[in-house]
């Protein structure tokens, strides 16, 4: 359907800039308009790839969780916390295989996977100084690499200012 979502957002932004903004006298209202522009920019930035990004994220998270479970199982000793997290991983990953591409459904799955990832990272963090847990290090690195990739993708109003140089270095 044309104009599509992004084209429509661009139209709204143009109307705000060219029609509404020149009529605005108050500094406060101009500031609100700028904020609306940034919010629209943020939405436009994720519109086209939102479904694909979520789909890929969920698959990647499921893979990372399974790798985590394998690494935990390979530890020389186990305990209730470790057994429990492995069970949780198996449970949540088996539910990930649904095929829906509805964004809200995939977001709900993403939240479930991330909630389990929170607990996995807690286990990894607790054992970071323990030589017995050394086998977890490669998976831990892979998890943070994924979290970095997701964070880099996120649009930010700081891109135009304080984070500009650091992002340029990446």
């Amino acid at each position, binding site marked *: 359907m044309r104009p599509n979502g992004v084209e429509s957002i661009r139209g709204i932004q143009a109307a705000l800039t060219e029609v509404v903004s020149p009529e605005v006298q108050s500094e406060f209202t101009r500031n609100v308009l700028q*904020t609306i522009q940034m919010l629209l920019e943020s939405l436009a930035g994720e519109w086209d790839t939102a479904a694909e990004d979520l789909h890929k994220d969920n698959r990647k998270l499921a893979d990372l969780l399974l790798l985590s479970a394998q690494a935990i199982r390979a530890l020389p000793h186990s305990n209730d916390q470790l057994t429990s997290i492995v069970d949780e991983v198996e449970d949540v990953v088996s539910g990930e295989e649904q095929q829906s591409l509805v964004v809200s459904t995939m977001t709900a799955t993403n939240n479930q996977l991330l909630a389990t990832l*929170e607990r996995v990272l807690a286990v990894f963090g607790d054992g970071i100084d323990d030589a017995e847990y050394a086998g977890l290090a490669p998976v831990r690195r892979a998890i943070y690499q994924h979290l970095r990739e997701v964070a880099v993708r996120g649009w*930010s109003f700081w891109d135009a*200012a304080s984070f500009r140089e650091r992002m340029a270095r990446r």
Partner: protein
Amino acid sequence: MLAQRIQTYLAARLAADGDVRVSNLHRIPGGASRETWSFDADWNEGFKDQHRGFIIRRDPDASLLVTDRDVEFRVMDAVAGQGIPIPKMYWLEQDSAWLERPFFVMERIDGCETSPEKVLMAPRFYQARSRIAEQFVQILARIHALDWATIGLDFLGVPESQATCAAIEIERWEAVLDRDALEPQPVLRAAFSWLRRHLPAPAQRIVVVHADHRTGNFLCNSDGEIKGVLDWEMTHLGDPMEDIAWACMRPWRWLGDEKIGGLLDRSDFYRMYSETAGMLIDEKAVRFWEVLGNVKFAAILLTGGRSFCDGRTRSVMMALVGRNIARLELEIMDLMEV
């Protein structure tokens, strides 16, 4: 009409002979934790015409921060006259009957700017930058030198010891995350775990921590003179390194380079602070507090997002900030070296 209600309020507060006239009432951008309104007032007192500019900070419908306005008022009132530039505080009004929500009234300081864009980028401020930087550091040292017990700031809560300052702040901000996060936050949760494993050495002494001392939170003129330090709502007693780290955080490096607050190099900041405050910079502690600062800022933004999604506000600012913690997560992971 807000102007009429303010007139009625001022008539009750000022020793005016007759009416008080309010003009030029307008809302000022920023200050996302409270609405900020500026206005002029004219009245007659003792057969003399009086004119004064005022600022009202009114509780919002929802906010980035859940703070008591009386904390900010009491702190600013106590700090005034202690060698720290601060607007004069007039009245704290808890009664919502006057302006629908609680508020306080303070002096308006004219001829100054707060916005980092203007203070750092407007040509008339270029020559003043080193002077601003110098004062920025000196004022922080003076805040840390305040005798908080003598000026009555122990109501903020005195840490049990210099060793507990960090744990108190971890708990404070983890509680905010527990309360306001709408989605899992693996990076922030991992950061809290990292913070507990990397607690700093006990604070050198317990000081007044402004907790939001940065470019954008002071009023300064183009001569480089800082005339007012603002935003005291997160002020508490704690470790001075917390303020050092907060001032150093990347979100306030507005020019996109590594200069602290867009003003000065980190090494110069450390050196000037140490010389003025007589305290050493503990770089390990600063790293700890910088991680916590970024986590705290992310938690504040998530509070805004929660307010929006819960329908307590329709502010687009709250919607925007709630979606904007990705860069903070990157910074946190960099600082944790993971």
